[in-house]
């Protein structure tokens, strides 16, 4: 023990090994976290599904009822009517949750409108709807 204490040259290899170990562990942790984040984002994007349950042309504008049929929470980021972006009430839906989003847009009777809903991850649902 006394010999080891006096042998200062032996400390350097021990320290270097410990340092290498710490660096290796840190490197692996970063890699695993990055893997988790990357695959997590991919999974969320792939797991996003939504449908338009109902479109209601009201006096105040157009209301769209959405249902999240996917496996991840989604947030409606954009609503387009005939390729024109609309202001709408924000909507966030958990899986199997549903709700209205409303647009204060004037419409004319007996007219076909092209509605498109875009989520924050880029998923889109779109279809033509005829006003009453």
């Amino acid at each position, binding site marked *: 023990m006394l010999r080891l204490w006096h042998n200062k040259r032996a400390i350097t290899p021990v320290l270097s090994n410990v340092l290498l170990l710490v660096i290796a562990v840190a490197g692996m942790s970063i890699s*695993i976290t990055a893997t988790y984040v990357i695959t997590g984002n*991919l999974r969320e994007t792939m797991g996003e599904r939504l449908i338009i349950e109902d479109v209601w042309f009201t006096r105040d504008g157009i209301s769209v*009822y959405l249902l999240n049929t996917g496996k991840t929470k989604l947030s409606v980021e954009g609503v387009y009517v005939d390729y024109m972006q609309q202001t709408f009430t924000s909507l966030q839906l958990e899986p199997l949750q549903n709700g209205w989003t409303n647009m204060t847009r004037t419409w004319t009777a007996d007219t076909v409108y092209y509605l498109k809903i875009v989520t924050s991850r880029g998923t889109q649902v779109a279809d033509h709807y005829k006003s009453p």
Partner: protein
Amino acid sequence: MQTTTSRRSLRRDKKGLSSIIVVVLSLVILVVIVANVILWSYQMNQLDWERAQESLTIDDVSRKTRSSWFATYAEYQISDGNFVSGSYVNTQIIDGNYERFIESYPPRTFDINGTFLLDVSNHPLTSIKSIEIRLRFAVGDVGERWYLRAFNWTSRTFSDRGFNSTAGCQPTASWNYYAVNLTNEWRDYVWEDGRVLIQIADQGPDSTRTNIDIDYLVIGAVADGAVFSFRNSGSRTAHILSIWINNATVHRRFETDLFVNSGETFSYTRLDISLPTGQYIAKVVTERGNIGVYTGD
């Protein structure tokens, strides 16, 4: 000898060893990423595939103004009078088999009551407009009137306050039908769990000790509902989450939690869904995101 030499050289060649470790760890990470993405992609593809295989249609939608009839599920309680023959089971359907009672010894009066249970899980109290009571009975003496009353949970007595008919029934010598409606006072007579206590009583003391044969005594809910006929022609069980009733002015959504097996046609009654007059569209939405549509008039 040769093996020992190569092991020694491997131990000395630390650069080579670290390269192998780096490659192996990188491979592990790569495999984890690819496996994760591929497995998830497989799951979502399966979800889309299942959605494509689902096929749910609405075959028919019709109005429903009354629930099914509910008979007593226990023997009648006799307050005044005597039991003669039969059982409460004989009073559940119209088939000529009856339960017979007789008026008490002087003063020759009669008073029995039975407990009935509305199925509030399928007929929520909020959807009921009124309650109807139906009785089929025969008596030995036609000289007095017979009355139907219900237990009023507010005043805690048997009463016919608010009934559409409080005059009672003057019987004939054959089978007699008597029906009363509790009108909009019905809520006082129905407990939260759907329990209704019905009383049959005679007019009062008289000279003849009469027997009474009860063939049928039931209650039913009056409502303004709808019956849907769903058909699942797909190869997967469909889980219906909502029903929509839309017309030009109103879009109404009703929550539901209904499973229809593959190949099955299912009749579904909802007393809380009233159908609009004129043309309307009924829609059902499944958990997988499919929509079945029916146009009614």
